């Protein structure tokens, strides 16, 4: 009964979003506040309906109602409760339902903002949000319905894909989707501004929290996905430049650019048209990501050609929204009033440079992701564009960006002074250089990339905190006063500093992977395998039964330079329903690095193929991402207005202390 009511609620939500699209738009044109206010009511009602539908599907999963095809295909009554719940979005249909649920949630939050958003902007925004909801509800109801029933119901389900039965999967998609879909609000606001022909600092102030929140969640989602791939796939890698990963990286890059240009717009009333374009592009890339992941086009262009219904549908949505919004942009953008001016050397210009680098980097990833698909469509040849391509194109774009980052952060608004800025950073630069040399001298023989990369990371972290020091301390200031001043700085400043320092930590973690060592051997009980300073001894292999899988557990004792560190378990797991094996890597954290043991085949005579890795500082990759997202959160907490105090034209002595 719940299932059918949920299905009906989804159909109701479609009707309501149609009203949400038409009536507020009409109201905004006729300047009728009553019609405009319909947007708010429908926004909330759509959310209520979709939330009910989602709850109905969740109930079907939790109670193992095998009269629902989706539950049969992705659940099993012996599965632990948490995977019954996460199974709701562990499949195509359910994940699309989660997508629209988050979409509707964002719409409801916009609708609830009573006084902080101008009425017309709110009405137009909700109307655009309604249009997106219509497209995706139609997609779900017509091509990917999670509420399809089967009679008679089978006695048992086919279980969830074992790779997905993991706590990582339980949180990764929701985080990622909040990120993707959060950008839909920035997009809706941008289109609303284009429709109304008005865009100003007020607009930027309203959009900033959305962009910031979406960006922070996307950062967490990507980091979570990367960590999940690292420990679940058993290859020990953390980023594969896989199209699915690229699909989430592209909106992140564009979103990072958007975040920075929104700041310029709010503080300085400049870069308006560019910000609008970025908002459109960011959401377009989110849609493209959804298309790549959901249409099946990645597994094979041919599988897409054989069963094209879903893919074509998303493709139409893609063309409609991207094409429509870009056409609207081309038509309306010239009408927008240009804002504040700034000198070539200024914080504004630095942020423009940041945007250009990020946009270009994003374009490289886009080409690397789509080129193989295009080639396969045209010639039928299947190639894969892997790390070599991205290392050659992406890194040269990102490294200069990172080198310029602390400089840009130190420049003054409106008119900057390059020399003065460089002077303020010489300490930071010096320390980083010393660190690099020291590591190089100490670790002689290792790869050159590692000390250089770590030096860059140290430079970024120090450069970020230099901002705080410069603004709260100058020669002769007592420490207590400086401390008080630093604590008094706006939280938005602290947020930016944390986020940039997080980038530095991630860079250090990535650079340190060059020091990783690996050992590969077939061992029997009592044998040892070696990787660098680390050794693992196989103690025993024991079978273990769980409700829906069985494990071969290999217990290892780990040694460093002969000293025992402890023991870890690495597993070869077989999920009985699907007959599918997975590896569960055994991981031991030593400081910020990790010892990683992955099992190969267990032979009949008891010998086991084992890979042993030692990955120094590897945790910094994800800790850095967490710090980045934390920075976003801290900045989000800051409800105050953002002020960028300009430097006046007459006063530009070299030693002047630039503002903010």
């Amino acid at each position: 009964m719940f299932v059918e009511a949920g299905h009906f609620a989804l159909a109701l939500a479609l009707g309501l979003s149609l009203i949400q699209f038409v009536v507020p738009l009409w109201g905004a044109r006729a300047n009728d506040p009553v019609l405009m206010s319909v947007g708010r009511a429908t926004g909330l009602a759509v959310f209520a309906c979709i939330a009910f539908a989602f709850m109905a599907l969740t109930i079907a999963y939790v109670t193992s109602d095998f009269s629902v095809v989706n539950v049969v295909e992705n659940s099993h009554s012996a599965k632990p409760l948490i995977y019954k719940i996460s199974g709701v979005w562990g499949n195509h249909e359910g994940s699309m339902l989660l997508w629209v649920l988050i979409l509707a949630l964002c719409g409801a939050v916009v609708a609830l903002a009573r006084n902080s958003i101008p009425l017309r902007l709110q009405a137009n925004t909700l109307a655009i949000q309604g249009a997106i909801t219509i497209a995706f509800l139609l997609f779900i109801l017509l091509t990917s319905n999670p509420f399809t029933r089967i009679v008679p119901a089978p006695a048992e389900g086919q279980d969830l894909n074992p790779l997905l039965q993991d706590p990582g999967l339980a949180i990764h998609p929701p985080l990622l989707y909040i990120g993707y879909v959060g950008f839909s609000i920035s997009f809706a606001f941008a289109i609303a501004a284009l429709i109304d022909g008005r865009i100003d600092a007020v607009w930027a102030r309203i959009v900033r929290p959305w962009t910031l929140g979406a960006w922070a969640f996307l950062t967490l989602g990507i980091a979570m996905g990367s960590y999940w791939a690292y420990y679940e796939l058993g290859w020990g890698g953390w980023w594969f430049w896989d199209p699915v990963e690229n699909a989430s990286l592209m909106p992140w890059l564009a979103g990072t650019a958007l975040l920075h240009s929104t700041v310029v717009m709010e503080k300085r009333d400049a870069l308006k048209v560019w910000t609008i374009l970025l908002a459109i592009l960011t959401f377009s890339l989110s849609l493209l990501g959804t298309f790549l992941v959901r249409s099946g086009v990645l597994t094979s262009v041919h599988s897409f050609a054989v069963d094209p219904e879903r893919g074509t549908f998303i493709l139409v949505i893609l063309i409609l929204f991207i094409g429509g919004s870009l056409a609207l942009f081309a038509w309306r953008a010239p009408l927008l009033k240009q804002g504040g001016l700034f000198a070539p050397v200024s914080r504004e210009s630095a942020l423009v440079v940041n945007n250009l680098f990020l946009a270009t980097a994003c374009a490289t990833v886009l080409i690397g992701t789509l080129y193989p698909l295009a080639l396969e469509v045209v010639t039928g040849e299947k190639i894969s564009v892997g790390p070599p391509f991205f290392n050659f194109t992406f890194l040269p774009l990102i490294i200069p960006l990172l080198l310029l980052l602390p400089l840009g952060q130190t420049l003054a608004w409106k008119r900057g002074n390059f020399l003065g800025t460089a002077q303020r950073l010489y300490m930071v630069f010096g320390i980083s250089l010393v660190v690099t040399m020291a590591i190089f001298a100490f670790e002689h023989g290792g790869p050159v990339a590692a000390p250089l990369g770590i030096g860059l990371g140290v430079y970024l972290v120090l450069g970020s905190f230099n901002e705080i020091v410069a603004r709260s301390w100058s020669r002769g200031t007592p420490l207590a006063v400086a401390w008080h001043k630093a604590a008094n700085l706006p939280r938005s400043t602290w947020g930016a500093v944390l986020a940039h320092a997080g980038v530095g930590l991630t860079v250090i973690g990535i650079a340190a992977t060059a020091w990783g060592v690996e050992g590969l051997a077939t061992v029997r009980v009592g044998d040892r395998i070696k990787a660098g300073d680390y050794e693992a001894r196989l103690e025993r292999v024991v079978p273990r039964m769980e409700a829906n899988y069985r494990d071969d557990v290999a217990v290892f004792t780990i040694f460093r330079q002969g000293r025992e560190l402890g023991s870890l378990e690495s597993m070869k797991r077989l999920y009985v329903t699907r007959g599918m094996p997975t590896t569960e890597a055994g991981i031991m954290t030593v400081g910020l690095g990790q010892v990683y043991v992955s099992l190969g085949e267990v032979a009949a005579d008891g010998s086991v193929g084992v890979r042993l890795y030692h990955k120094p500082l590897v945790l910094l990759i994800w800790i850095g991402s967490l710090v980045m997202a934390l920075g976003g959160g801290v900045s989000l907490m800051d409800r105050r207005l953002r002020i960028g105090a300009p430097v006046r034209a007459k006063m530009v002595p070299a030693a002047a202390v630039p503002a903010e």
Partner: protein
Amino acid sequence: MVIWIILLLMTAAAVMAVLWPLSRHRTPTAEQLDPDTQFYREQIAEIERDRERGVLLASEAEAAKAEAGRRLLRATGMMADASATLGEPALRRRRAASTLALSVIPIIALALYGAYGSPQLLTHPPRERAEGQQGSLDLVTAVSQIEAHLAQNPQDGRGWEVVAPVYLRMGRIEDAVKAYEAAVRYLGPSADRLSNYGEVMVLAKDGLVSSEAQKVFEQAVELDNTSPKARYYLAVAAEQDGRLDKAKQAYADLLASSPEGAPWAEVVKQRLAGLGVAQPVVAGQENAPQIGADDIARMVSGLAERLETQGGSPDEWARLIRSYAVLGQHDKARATVERARQVLAQDDAGLKAIDATARELKLTDAGP
């Protein structure tokens, strides 16, 4: 009935969500009408606070304030036009919007739900589901207990024999094959045990009686020449091999020696009918749910067409060959073997798989 009332209430609530704001008069606040002025006033206040807290220097604060002041001046006079809440046009708009909501929401919801929903399940909820589910939960616990026991005592043939049919019911056919094999090994052969073992082997091969399965059935018949299951599958094997007379004879003998109302009689009669032997139609038989021969033929020809036009994996070719063999169309099966060999000429592993299938089906010898 109750469910229809719930759906009706849901629709009513959705429509009300639209009608409610339409029925209210509200005047927008000053902030909503003129957000810009408000924004720059707040910004100037913020600059003042920052200066007091010492975050901004006095000179910086002055510069920032001057700029915000300039923008404030520009923003005044851009106030939004007075809103149109009153008068005849506004009323007409409201009525039109209400009509839209009253019609669009129920029509779309009912049309889509009617097309894709399963409202018939609402009035006749599948009650047996609930019981079946309870049963399956118990089953799973029971199976895991037996499995744990067998992991400790793998030589307990009785345990394997108990768990095997349960595996079959749960769809774990490979496990069922292994379990019966263990049961035969530890408890020794008996006609029943062997014929059950053979049956799961047949099921594991999608209905094909492989040569190994045939040996198992032959052994069962040696032990007890009345075993109906073994005799039935041996007849099926004969039919697959194209020895149709032998198959007919075997089916007829089986039917003759079966007691009145034996559960397998229907199946055997259908088999005989398929071989062209007329059978008296038993009342009610035509209502029995079954997949018609036409459906099977259509599925097979669909597969054949797809493989011919788009190609396919060696496994798919093998499946097509098997399907023809099971249907008794040996000429086509042999032709398909030839065709598959041509298509897969470049694929050594594929060729081996096709040859193995052909050998298994005894298609390699000339003539039936």
